[in-house]
């Protein structure tokens, strides 16, 4: 630990809490142009989607308004992003569908992240028998047939948006738990953890105040990888009848349907795909920015 590195290294525990830490982090995030860009784009997208949810006619057309005579039209002055085979305005459908997709993408990711991190951190930290049992449970869940699981969910609980989160959460946290566990096992041997032990800190505190912050990098990377996965997974659940029901839509469903007609009506794939890519890039920039801002060990760039 070089004394002369301009931003001196500080043990995470010492700055893990306290308002100044968060203020600093916020300040650092605000300095990061790309992260701000990501934040702004996400905010604008979310606001637009929310507005479309409140006022479905915000684009001049509602997501369900058909024009069979028009059919699939390429982007034009009336329909900025064109229309689908039923003559529905793609922009309206994109915005309206964005609500559910963003919610699923962000909430489900957050849920699976929380479960995965807690679960993986406990398993990795505890080691021994507990770790064994916890990780074997993960193995079991990995192997169970997902489609049947989803069908059973619907049979027993009916169709319900909450189930969407349950179904997605049930699979997405598994990999996160494994990654976190691997990292925790590596980090827990490091000296600062041993020092925390020596100080007599409670285990829970050691895990979540000392170890988890050290895993921010991989966790944030994984989280940004999970979002597109979840958004696309939703379209599979729609296939099984969970997920959104027509005439509602979601980005996953739009992309899936667009892919089927990508040679005939390319705009039906390009625009949903572009919006999703934009979201993903923004999330990624924001994620990188967050990691750097929260990374208490100093400069990364």
């Amino acid at each position, binding site marked *: 630990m070089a004394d002369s590195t301009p931003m001196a290294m500080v043990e995470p525990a010492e700055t893990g809490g306290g308002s100044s830490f968060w203020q600093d982090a916020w300040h650092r995030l605000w300095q990061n142009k790309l992260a701000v860009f990501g934040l702004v784009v996400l905010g604008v997208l979310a606001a637009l989607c929310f507005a479309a949810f409140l006022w479905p006619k915000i684009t001049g057309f509602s997501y*369900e308004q058909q024009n069979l005579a028009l059919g699939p039209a390429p982007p034009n002055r009336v329909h900025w992003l064109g229309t689908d*085979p*039923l*003559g529905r305005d793609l922009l309206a459908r994109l915005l309206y569908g964005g609500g559910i997709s963003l919610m699923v993408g962000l909430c489900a990711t957050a849920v699976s992240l929380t479960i995965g991190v807690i679960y993986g951190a406990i398993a990795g930290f505890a080691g021994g028998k507990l770790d064994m049992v916890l990780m074997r449970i993960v193995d079991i869940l990995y192997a169970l047939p997902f489609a049947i699981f989803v*069908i059973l969910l619907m049979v027993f609980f009916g169709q319900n948006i909450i189930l969407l989160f349950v179904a997605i959460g049930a699979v997405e946290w598994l990999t996160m738990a494994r990654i976190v566990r691997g990292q925790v096992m590596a980090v827990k041997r490091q000296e600062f953890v041993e020092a925390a032990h020596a100080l007599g800190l409670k285990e829970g505190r050691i895990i979540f105040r000392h170890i988890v912050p050290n895993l921010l990098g991989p966790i944030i990377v994984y989280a940004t990888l999970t979002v597109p996965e979840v958004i696309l997974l939703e379209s599979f659940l*729609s*296939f099984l009848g969970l997920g959104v029901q027509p005439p509602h839509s979601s980005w996953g469903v739009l992309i899936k349907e667009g892919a089927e007609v990508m040679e*005939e009506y390319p705009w039906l794939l390009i625009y949903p795909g572009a919006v999703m890519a934009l979201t993903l890039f923004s999330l990624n920039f924001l994620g990188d920015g967050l990691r750097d801002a929260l990374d208490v060990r100093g400069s990364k760039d």
Partner: protein
Amino acid sequence: MINNSTVGQNVYLTILCLALLAGGCGQRETLAAIGDRTQELRLNNEGEPSSLDPAVAIGTIEHYIMLSLYEGLVAPDPKDLSLRPGAAENWEISPDGKVYTFHLRKNGRWSNSEPVTARDFVESYHRMLMPSMASQYSYMLYPVKNAEAFNLGKISDFGQVGFKALDDYTLQVTLHSPAPYLLSMMIHDSWYPVPTAVIKKHGAIDDRTNPWTRPENFVGNGPFVLKEWRMNSHILVERSPTYWDAKNVRLNKIYFDPTESTDTAERMFRSAQIHSDPQAPPSKVAFYRKYKPNLIKVYPLLATYFYKINVTRPPMNDKRVRQALAMAIDRHAITETIMRAGEEPAFFLTPPNTAGYTCQTKVKEDVAAARQLLADAGYPDGKNFPPVEVLFNTLQSHKAIAEAFQAMWKKNLNINVVLHNEEWKVYLDSMRHLDYFMGRAGWNGDYVDPSTFLDMFLTDSGNNETGWSNAEYDRLVRLASNTGDRAVRYDAYQKAEAILLDEMPIIPIYFYTRPRLIRPSVRGWYPNVLDQYDFKSIYLVPEDN
């Protein structure tokens, strides 16, 4: 089991090919072009066959392959589906229409060179009807005397069933009542002969899992014989030298490709890997018809797309509600803007001109009348109309149609319906248990006769699935199937279908078409409503250039 060196080798070769990616590989002769030269037909068959045993197989995937492997007593002419001799050289029908006598060809041979005899047929039908065989299509043999009783285990002596081998080459079939459509039923797989001696050699005769249809064991009497069967990869059949008419068979080989995805199949067709793909993706049909009309043939099928209505569930238990729903939709809009493959809107159930029968009653499309009916039923301007669901299995076109109807009903009747998609087996389960309001359905005729459609709504029909029951309808349909007089039959069917269209347990929507992609090099192929191939007549001519 796993050949490691092959795997390793292939990994290596792939890396080589990746390197070649940069360099490019140049023009190659396409598989279709090679086939044109060597008379090897490559056909997408839309899926992996579950079995090639006529007593076990159930679908069109299996049927197309078996068409090449077996030959029934009669064979359909591909041009008009009229019947011509198959394994039987000729036949006689008794004046009362109950006894059919088939004279088999003396030169009929199995692919193991054994003669095809009348006893083979009798034993095949015996096997088909064995309760232990649990054959799903055994009912296709039910017109035959005591066939149903034997199949259901009510009698155990097959001697009482109306199949008799009078001598090696004469087969007598006795019916319990005249069935004028019997011969057209006989083109169905369930009427194929199977080599019972060979089957017994490989296991129990009634064992569904008997491996006799493996390429190394297979024996058939058709123009082709099974050579290779690689699951999900391909099935290869080759010209059978023992077939009685082998000299008139022009194709040397047929490759059946099991590609289920219509998009994949279309790409294979476009790159000339296959000669024909039976089902162009819906979104591409219009493009082919406009820009590549010589590569696509669109022709009607004996099949109807309709909605079933669960008449036991309010508000669908009110006939006026059902009529209102059926009258307030625009079928032309569906066929012309969503389906776009030349489908005909359906205003009745049985496809027009099915064996000369066309229903005279039609569902009217009349929004004002529909609104009035709905008001009469207690829902003026859609007020208080409870939320009803449209159930469909997950598929893009089902969804688009349901969405269009949803909008039409909202606009025309001011009612809200909810759309609900389910995975295939869940959907089947919901339909079977009447756990739905309205459900999407489709029906392919098994043979060319109105009965294959109208039998469906008999009270005790397993395929009714609407809870609808009408004594007069049942009486008329039964009457029709027990008479040999065509005029009486069709009159009864007209009356029955009129009842069906008044009671409206179903909403007919459109008649299917087949948008088949087919290369011009394929000759001797003809479109027909059952989409039957005649592999004997098909041949290939290399395309110019």
